[in-house]
């Protein structure tokens, strides 16, 4: 069965997404970008970036912003206003509808939008490796029936069955899962490339109702860019008397610089615009280097930001919903990344807006979720559980050794081989732990058992395989198996994922809070373990090779062993490390000495860990 895709058919850019494995995924276009410019060359059948790049050379042939004409009549006031701004010809088509004329051919806005949708469809098909013939398409909340109908027709011309037309603000709310809560009011602030929309919705418990919508159809990110370019060009002109806007090459570099600065100032407080050799005066090259601060950008664009709040206030008033009754505010459109806009929205509504989903993609993501509901794969997704916390066992020095990391999708299993910590150890204690802390005592103990009957052997020799197995129901089975004898013992723990959310959160928080002291404690234990291993090796080497080692060296190593023993249980990490290092150096002298003598002697060492 083919998938239904969600499409945000925008005025400036379009975006698409699909539900996959129960999660929405944005589909990149053939050029590898997540958004596609809604620009069409109907003559050459090109769409997107390639069409947009010819806008300057073929202004009468390249169609952009056709969404403004969708389902409109030629005589409509808005169309008459738009005609003045659009570089292509808008004519009266069938039944007085607005249409586009290129050379001798007339195209309906539906046909132009269909070209955009066709490209999206084709790119989605090649991405998904499957035919795509159904879609959910979004429209602004203020679209009337004729505009919605036109959008639906555009889909059909493109070979897409339009399963549903949904409002952009509704889609954005769906992307945040706000429909799952009980019925409440939501405001959606959408500042895109060329339009601004504000909508108040009632959403939840199957209710999707637009209470009011408002906006400015000619206000967007492009206006912000223009202001920055004007400011920079004026600055340069003040200093050098040259207007960079008159030189296309310099203007292009200025435009790139302004856009880069705008983006950077969303995350930094100051940025540098650095354009060496930007122009020439009296045969001398001129460079443009200037700093732009976030504060300056904010003061430049203050008016534009203010302009959005007129419609916001009007929309709230029209909705009849008190500002304090708006439960959630959702941000849409690339411009809402600007910290000042977030701040102003927060100030106006008195609450932190939702903006964790990419604002360029949030509408398409919501459309995909709606598509998923229609296609049945949202309701019915098999929600595979994950382990909320890390699972592991206690090892030498009371350390928690993780086997299954938190957030691992279950069912899963994992095993690791451990060994004994002492010579002739015949049993091991398997202590199963859950938590994020490095020390065993700080984690939750899920259970413990003893594996007995291990044949006596030097430490590190036995091989004990510990296996963790979690089934789809979250039931954990831990098995320990002595590889030499095949003896095994196991424990079944039912509560491994059944912690309450608060418990999980508490444990995670504790891990974060204690991260530093835990690190120190862990390092100390590791140093101690290392010291003990080395002491064991050293003593064994001394014992086994007493005759072969020079007395002087023997005494030296013996002394170092005593030194290390004296500090290994103390708190001072540096001391332990230093003495370990010293013993290691002396010990390696024995190795050297023995290698120099052509005698056979082998001291084997294995991994020494005690489960």
């Amino acid at each position, binding site marked *: 069965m083919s998938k239904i895709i969600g499409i945000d058919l925008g005025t400036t850019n379009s975006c698409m997404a699909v539900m996959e*494995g129960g999660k929405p995924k944005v589909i990149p276009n053939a050029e590898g970008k997540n958004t596609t410019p809604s620009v069409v060359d109907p003559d050459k059948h090109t769409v997107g970036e390639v069409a947009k790049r010819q806008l300057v050379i073929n202004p009468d042939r390249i169609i952009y912003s056709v969404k403004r004409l969708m389902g409109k009549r030629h005589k409509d006031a808005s169309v008459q206003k738009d005609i003045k701004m659009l570089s292509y010809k808008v004519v009266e088509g069938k039944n007085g509808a607005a249409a586009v004329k290129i050379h001798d051919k007339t195209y309906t806005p539906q046909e132009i939008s269909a070209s955009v949708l066709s490209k999206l469809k084709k790119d989605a098909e090649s991405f998904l490796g499957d035919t795509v013939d159904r879609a959910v398409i979004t429209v602004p909340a203020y679209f009337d029936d004729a505009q919605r109908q036109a959008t639906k027709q555009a889909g059909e011309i493109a070979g897409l069955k339009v399963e549903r037309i949904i409002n952009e603000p509704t889609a954005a709310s769906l992307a945040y899962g706000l429909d799952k809560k009980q019925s409440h009011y939501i405001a959606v602030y959408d500042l895109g490339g060329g339009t601004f929309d504000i909508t108040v919705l009632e959403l939840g418990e199957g209710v999707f109702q637009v209470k009011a919508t408002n906006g400015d159809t000619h206000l967007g990110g492009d206006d912000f860019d223009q202001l920055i370019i004007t400011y920079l060009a004026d600055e340069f002109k003040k200093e050098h008397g040259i207007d960079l806007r008159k030189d296309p090459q310099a203007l292009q570099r200025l435009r790139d610089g302004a856009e880069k600065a705008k983006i950077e100032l969303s995350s930094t407080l100051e940025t540098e615009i650095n354009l060496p050799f930007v122009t020439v005066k009296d045969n001398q090259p001129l460079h443009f280097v200037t700093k732009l601060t976030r504060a300056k950008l904010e003061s430049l664009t203050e008016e534009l930001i203010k302009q959005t709040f007129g419609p916001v206030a009007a929309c709230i008033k029209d909705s009849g919903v008190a500002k304090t009754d708006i439960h959630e505010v959702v941000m849409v459109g690339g411009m809402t990344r600007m910290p000042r806009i977030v701040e102003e929205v927060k100030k106006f509504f008195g609450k932190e807006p939702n903006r964790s989903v990419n604002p360029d993609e949030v509408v398409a993501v919501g459309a995909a979720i709606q598509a998923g509901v229609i296609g049945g794969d949202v309701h019915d997704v098999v929600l595979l559980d994950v382990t909320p916390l890390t699972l592991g066992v206690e090892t030498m020095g009371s350390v928690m050794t993780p086997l299954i990391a938190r957030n691992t999708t279950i069912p899963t299993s994992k095993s690791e081989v451990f060994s004994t910590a002492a010579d002739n150890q015949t049993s091991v204690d398997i202590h199963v732990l859950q938590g994020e802390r490095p020390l065993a005592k700080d984690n939750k103990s899920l259970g413990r058992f003893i594996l007995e009957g291990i044949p006596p052997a030097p430490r590190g020799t036995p091989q004990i395989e510990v296996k963790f197995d979690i089934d789809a129901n979250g039931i954990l089975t831990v098995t320990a198996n002595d590889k030499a004898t095949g003896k095994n013992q196991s424990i079944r723990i039912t509560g491994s994922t059944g912690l309450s959310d608060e418990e999980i959160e508490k444990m995670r928080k504790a891990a974060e809070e204690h991260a530093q002291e835990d690190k120190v404690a862990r390092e100390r234990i590791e140093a101690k373990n290392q010291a003990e291993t080395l002491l064991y090796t050293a003593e064994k080497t001394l014992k086994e090779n007493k005759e072969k080692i020079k007395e002087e060296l023997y005494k030296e190593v013996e002394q170092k062993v005593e030194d290390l023993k004296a500090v290994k249980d103390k708190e001072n990490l540096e001391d332990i490390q230093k003495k370990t290092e010293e013993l290691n150096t002396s010990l390696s002298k024995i190795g050297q000495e023995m290698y120099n003598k052509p005698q056979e002697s082998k001291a084997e060492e294995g991994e020494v860990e005690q489960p």
Partner: protein
Amino acid sequence: MTKSNKDTKLEELKHKYLLALADYQNLEKRVWSEHERLQTETYRKVITPFLDIKDDIDAAKKFGQHDGIDLIQHKMEDIITKLGVEQINPEGKPFEPEIMECISTEEGSEHNRVTKVHKKGYRMGTSLLRPAIVTVSITNLQKKEETP
């Protein structure tokens, strides 16, 4: 549970299983192509900012010959070529929107030809890192002749 109930449940589960399996197989296929795409994207992210410096060097060269600048330019070109990046310098060639972006036009004897390259373009294999930024000629004269 009656037999027919069981059958329905079985069908439903089978359907879900097949869906999951299909999702997985498609994912598997895509992981590879996605891997390639991500690699190109990573290259694009790393290389593109350096192209900006190369633009500066190109711009500097317009203000007279300087051996040192030539050497830097040569070094830079050498590095990006070794990374598999190909330069697009379409001066005098017909305008191709697939790899060029037109930012201005000027009257010329021939229609649709690149008269100035403001910024060179770059591609890597089939992927376009950045289009060349150009001025293109248009023949307004022709139009005038047509109109009486």
